[in-house]
């Protein structure tokens, strides 16, 4: 089997380490995406996966163009129009102060998905940094760091995030901070496992015996080769993160009004869940759909990048 993707040999060793890592990760993200794409549109992709990818694409489009195509001003209060059920004028109804639910849904897509993505990416980044540092430090320090992660992990992340978000005050930013703070230890632990596995492979050892410094080793061999596992991890996390954000919003520590992020919309419609059901049903559906689509995509990505299928060429 031929392949011309995976990792462009562009970065020169003489460059600054950060440049290398940036280039390497950019190149491998590109490579992975290309590989993924080929698999996706190959004949053997399950219909479910295509649908999920389609849905994710749709959500992404909604997130990008959503704010520009809203039928109404998503923030305009029109108290005389409050609590209108779905109709031709308001396809998804209006909320308790008369704002158009569809418009708010569209306006909030980006916010919701972006914050979920931000949480996953940041937690992964913190996790990778901690795991890398741990991997570079002597064994004892490494163990101490991992123990610290274990301790953090003995507080269930929802409780920790709830406590932290409450402490930081209700805002999207504090939710992001709280969620990252609550989820980095498990990410770090996972990353540590992944890095450790990569580090013990003989191609890394073969670079090690040349006297390549550990940080350089990390950037040049270990991290790029751990990325696949990291993508899988990250893609699996997004779904859960979307759900968790909405849970925090439901508990009242979400973004304050008039933020149209979906979690906050549910929280605002909480009192009307079953009477003026449209206020929270649609954001609830959007969150569920998003979570399900990302969940399926995460699954698919995992089976694509599964290490056992990697050698099959």
């Amino acid at each position: 089997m031929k392949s011309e993707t995976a990792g462009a040999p562009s970065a020169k060793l003489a460059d600054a380490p950060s440049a290398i890592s940036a280039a390497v990760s950019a190149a491998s993200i590109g490579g992975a995406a290309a590989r993924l794409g080929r698999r996706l549109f190959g004949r053997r992709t399950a219909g479910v996966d295509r649908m999920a990818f389609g849905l994710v694409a749709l959500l992404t489009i909604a997130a990008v163009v959503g704010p520009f195509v809203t039928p109404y001003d998503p923030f305009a209060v029109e108290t005389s129009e409050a609590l209108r059920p779905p109709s031709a004028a308001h396809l998804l109804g209006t909320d308790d102060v008369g704002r158009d639910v569809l418009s708010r849904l569209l306006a909030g897509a980006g916010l919701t998905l972006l914050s979920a993505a931000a949480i996953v990416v940041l937690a992964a980044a913190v996790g990778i940094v901690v795991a890398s540092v741990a991997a570079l430090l002597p064994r004892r320090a490494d163990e101490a760091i991992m123990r610290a992660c274990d301790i953090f992990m003995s507080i269930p992340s929802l409780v920790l995030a709830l406590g932290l978000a409450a402490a930081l005050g209700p805002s999207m930013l504090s939710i992001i901070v709280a969620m990252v703070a609550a989820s980095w230890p498990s990410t770090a632990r996972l990353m540590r496992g992944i890095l450790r596995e990569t580090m013990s492979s003989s191609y890394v050892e073969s670079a090690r015996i040349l006297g390549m410094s550990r940080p350089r080793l990390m950037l040049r061999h270990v991290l790029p080769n751990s990325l696949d596992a990291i993508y899988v991890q990250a893609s699996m996390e997004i779904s859960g993160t979307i759900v968790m954000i909405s849970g925090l919003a439901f508990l009242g520590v979400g973004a304050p009004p008039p933020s149209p992020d979906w979690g906050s919309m549910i929280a605002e419609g909480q009192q009307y869940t079953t009477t003026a059901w449209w206020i929270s049903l649609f954001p609830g559906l959007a969150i569920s759909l998003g979570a399900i689509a990302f969940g399926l995509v995460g699954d698919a990505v995992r089976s694509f990048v599964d290490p056992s299928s990697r050698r099959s060429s």
Partner: protein
Amino acid sequence: MNLHKRKLALTLLSATTAMALSSCQLPTGASSGGSGSAKQSTIVIGSSNTAETLDPLQSSDAHNDFNLAPMYDRLVDFDAKGEMVPKLAEQWTFNGDATQLTLTLRKGVKFHSGNSFTAADVVYSLDRAKKIGSGAASFLSDYASSKATDDLHVVITLSKTDLDFIGALSQIYILDSNLVKPNQGSDNAQGWLGTHEAGSGPFAMGTYKPNQELDLTRNKDYWDFDDKRPTSIVLRMINDSSANRDEFLAGNLDITMGLASVDVDNISKDSKYEIVNIPAPRQTYAWLNMQGKITGDARVREAIQLAYDYNGHLASALGNQGSIANSILPEGIACRVDAGKPQQDLEKAKQLIKAAGVEGASITVAYQPSVREFNAAGTILQDSLKKIGLNAQLKAVTFPQYSALVSKPETMPDVALAWDFAAFPAAGPMLNREWNSALAGQTNFTRYSNPKVDALLKDGLTAADQKQACSDFQEVQQQVIADHALLYIAYPAVTMVSDKRVGPIPFSPTQQDFNVGTLRMAK
């Protein structure tokens, strides 16, 4: 299949209930007889008033008070018209400068424990409040000491002249000191009273499942016994309003409140149910920061008043349950000044903003997201202000956070949506709390500071003559209104939904929702 199971469970249930009742309940003289009648006069109330503690000192929290009121008695109370009525105290007299108050107590009152009520119980209850210093103790700031001269007479000494002190006593529940003392422990019985009861009220505690359910049984030895009171009351603490609605519609509740307006509208179509709107002794305000960078300017404050969509508030935030305010004091209080209902006037507001030169400026609006009304009000305010060129940033805060923010001038929000209420229908204490410059940053939520108002308040509070006091307080109100220190927005009503088994529910000005102790059966 599930349906079948449910039925099975219910049959089993009623069988056991019948057994339990026939074995331990005294037969009641009701006409229908048997266990059925006992069941019929049980009223089940669902509300979000989940008691944090049953310690009567914590009655300043409306959630607690709702549960406490039927179990305890106070010395005095106010009736629906705001008139003071005797309860455990039959008579009260101030000395000349109103620094000493003598109470004559009701004879023959018994606590649920069987202990007789005496002056010692009053002294104990007041001293305990002073010692602990929290909750309802805040109404007793002028209390110095008290003394039982005999079983039925108490002399209370105040630290300064305070004519309203007698009104404040309506907030203090009287404890059975002989019962409490042995359980006092090291925390003045705060722990014990949290889950136990030591009152003399119309209902005694049956079982208590914290955060869930309080079962009350009628006190057959009550001094004001009335057999129209239900034989038992179950208070179910259900925080979610839609769960309340669903339980009510499923027939599991007789009374529920705090439903969303849509739900109320739907339920009102069904003649099986009764919808009662009770005025509440509370009011919705938007406090304006008198010393704020932007709101420090009276023109801006007036503009905000003119910008707000009051009708929208009534319609959306309150679901038409309540009315637009016409005073800076809640309803049912003497000496209120009628300021007229505020009107939205965007044009004028815009001009004022332009004149003040603050177009496009940002201001902070604090609100408590746990109160539904504020969520909508915040959004409406934000939208209203946008129309006059002010950019409002909403800041959701818990009450403790809000208190902390207010305590420092630099963290003080420009606008704060809040409820305030008169614990008892007297203008003085409430006005003093809100507008006295000495209390700025504590209970004076606007940092209002006006020497003239301070002087008037002092004069009014220490006036031995009610009339004089009243005119002082009215002048205070006029001054505050003239200073545009706040948006007086609405009087939110308590909407109660009940089936027809329950009689009319009277308004009680010392109670946030209603006094469970006053419930009567319909027949």
